[in-house]
């Protein structure tokens, strides 16, 4: 049983998805989905523990040897990602049943959970697999279900947002497919480990160079790197609130994982950072992303839009960490990946609670909420502080390592710009705090009550995780350090 964990991780949610159809009552389906997601979380915990003690796990599908059969390969990086995805999914799903009552018609609830589980399975699959073509298939499984989930939003603009995401996402995925085809043509293999050994022989050819460019652009479309981010704000803003919380914490993270996997493991560090001027490109795009998106966030009237733009800015930080291309830089990126998942799922869940109580998330509707929904608003404030990077929250830990990495490399101006970028976060978080705490409640809003427990429990679990991992950093730092070192090939394999 234990030997089959890598495949169970993916297959459990995938097989569970169609089974939902047999359960007719929405509450039963919800419970079933929650149990499945919890099971996936449990599996990822065991996997991480196994990987940390005994190194990478290799699982051959159907017993076929690696270069011929498909291989699942769980190393420190993938185990870490699996844990983030399944943990966030489980916590978010806890609030799903209450939240979608008001946002999705009852007859579509079962479909909602099916799509949710499929999307989860796709993302877990991308991270678990060690086969380049398998990545594309799982990418499309998770993306197609994500498009449909976004289209379930009750505003008609959700449809338009989903359509735009579909076009952009498919272009991105097809670019990745072209890239994979080109490297297959040159090496005759699709296994990532095998590719990393055979690519150096043909590294000087134009075909490999083109393949690399296609894959990088495709992945960057998926991770919404500035200026390829245009699909993201509307998709996040009009999707059902639960889906926003789920996707914001996981979908872009998986794309960042792919970026790291392809540049470090498949193409190799020396190829990736010498053939294309990747370092300067990513520093510039990352920093402009931080500033452009943070500035845009300040002017948003819809709070979901605001945090969606802030997500683009946070992706900028991860890309800057990545571009440093040292162990510390990569560590900063991985830490921020984990921390940002915690912050954004907490924030968007809190917004889901606000949506449940008031039916909208326009900033003007937040007036006086500080007194009417004290616990929800406190969660938004702590999440916001974490976003800014205030000490004792997780946001501080990752920004600290990012600045450390940048300074280690002697990039002083970049460090200053990162700090300036955090100041912009202060501005947009302050706008919410000001409206919620210092403005009088709107007339006729006396009846607004605190969010129900089914929201407060998951929100505060995430908020406490935000503080806990900001103080006790042993787990996150140990795992990211080992993962970064193994990617650079210095640590234990």
């Amino acid at each position: 049983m234990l030997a089959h964990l890598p495949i169970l991780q993916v297959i459990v949610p995938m097989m569970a998805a169609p089974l939902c159809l047999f359960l007719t009552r929405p509450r039963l389906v919800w419970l079933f989905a929650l149990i499945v997601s919890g099971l996936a979380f449990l599996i990822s915990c065991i996997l991480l523990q196994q990987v940390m003690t005994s190194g990478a796990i290799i699982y051959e599908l159907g017993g076929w040897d690696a270069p011929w059969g498909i291989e699942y390969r769980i190393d420190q990086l993938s185990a870490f990602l699996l844990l983030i995805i399944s943990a966030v999914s489980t916590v978010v799903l806890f609030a799903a049943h209450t939240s979608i009552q008001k946002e999705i018609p009852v007859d579509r609830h079962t479909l909602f959970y099916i799509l949710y589980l499929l999307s989860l399975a796709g993302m877990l699959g991308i991270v678990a697999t060690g086969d380049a073509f398998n990545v594309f298939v799982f990418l499309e499984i998770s993306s197609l279900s994500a498009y449909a989930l976004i289209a379930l939003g009750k505003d008609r603009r959700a449809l338009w947002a989903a359509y735009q995401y579909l076009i952009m996402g498919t272009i991105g995925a097809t670019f990745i497919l072209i890239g994979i085809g080109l490297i297959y043509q040159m090496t005759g293999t699709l296994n990532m480990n095998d590719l990393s050994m055979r690519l150096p022989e043909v590294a000087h050819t134009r075909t490999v160079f083109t393949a690399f460019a296609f894959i990088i652009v495709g992945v960057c479309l998926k991770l919404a790197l500035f200026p390829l981010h245009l699909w993201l704000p509307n998709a996040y803003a009009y999707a059902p609130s639960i889906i926003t919380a789920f996707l914001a914490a996981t979908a872009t993270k998986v794309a960042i994982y792919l970026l790291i996997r392809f540049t470090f493991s498949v193409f190799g560090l020396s190829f990736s950072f010498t053939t294309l001027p990747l370092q300067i490109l990513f520093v510039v795009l990352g920093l402009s992303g931080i500033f452009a998106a943070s500035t845009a966030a300040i002017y948003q009237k819809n709070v979901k839009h605001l945090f969606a733009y802030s997500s683009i800015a946070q992706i900028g930080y991860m890309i800057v960490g990545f571009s440093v291309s040292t162990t510390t830089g990569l560590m900063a990126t991985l830490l921020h990946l984990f921390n940002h998942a915690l912050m954004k799922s907490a924030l968007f869940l809190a917004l889901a609670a606000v949506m449940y109580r008031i039916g909208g998330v326009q900033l003007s509707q937040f007036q006086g909420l500080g007194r009417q929904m004290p616990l929800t608003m406190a969660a938004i404030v702590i999440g916001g502080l974490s976003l800014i990077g205030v000490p004792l929250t997780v946001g501080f830990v990752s920004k600290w390592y990012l600045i450390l990495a940048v300074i280690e490399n002697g990039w002083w101006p970049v460090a200053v710009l990162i700090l300036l970028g955090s100041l912009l976060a202060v501005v947009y978080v302050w706008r919410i705090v000001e409206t919620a705490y210092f403005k009088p409640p709107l007339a006729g809003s006396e009846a607004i009550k605190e969010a129900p427990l089914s929201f407060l429990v998951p929100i505060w679990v995430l908020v406490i995780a935000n503080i806990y991992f900001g103080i006790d950093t042993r787990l996150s730092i140990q795992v990211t350090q080992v993962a970064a070192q193994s990617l650079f090939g210095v640590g234990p394999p």
Partner: protein
Amino acid sequence: MLMGLYNYWIVVVLMMVGFYIVIAHGNLIKKIVGLSIFQTSVFIFYISMAKVDGGTAPILSDGISKYSNPLPHVLILTAIVVGIATTALGLALAVRIKEAYGSIEEEEIQKKDNLDC
């Protein structure tokens, strides 16, 4: 040179045609048509690279020692399924958009959205 890479020229032309339609056209159905052409070019690309000079179809039989590579065919079978799913979902969204907005022209939809804000 020109004739030897005949398939690849087709691939490049189709790819650019499809990509251009996706970017340049405002009609949602035309965009999806463009997207399909774009994806199809990638299918042809995979199939072309599987061809081995002088090789036959990859079916085991006596007296034949040279086969074309069957793996890309299998891969593309999967990619075609994905492509169909994408097209179907895109068209379904277009239908829903038509119901909600009364139009499938990008400009008009944007205009109506701006009025809402």
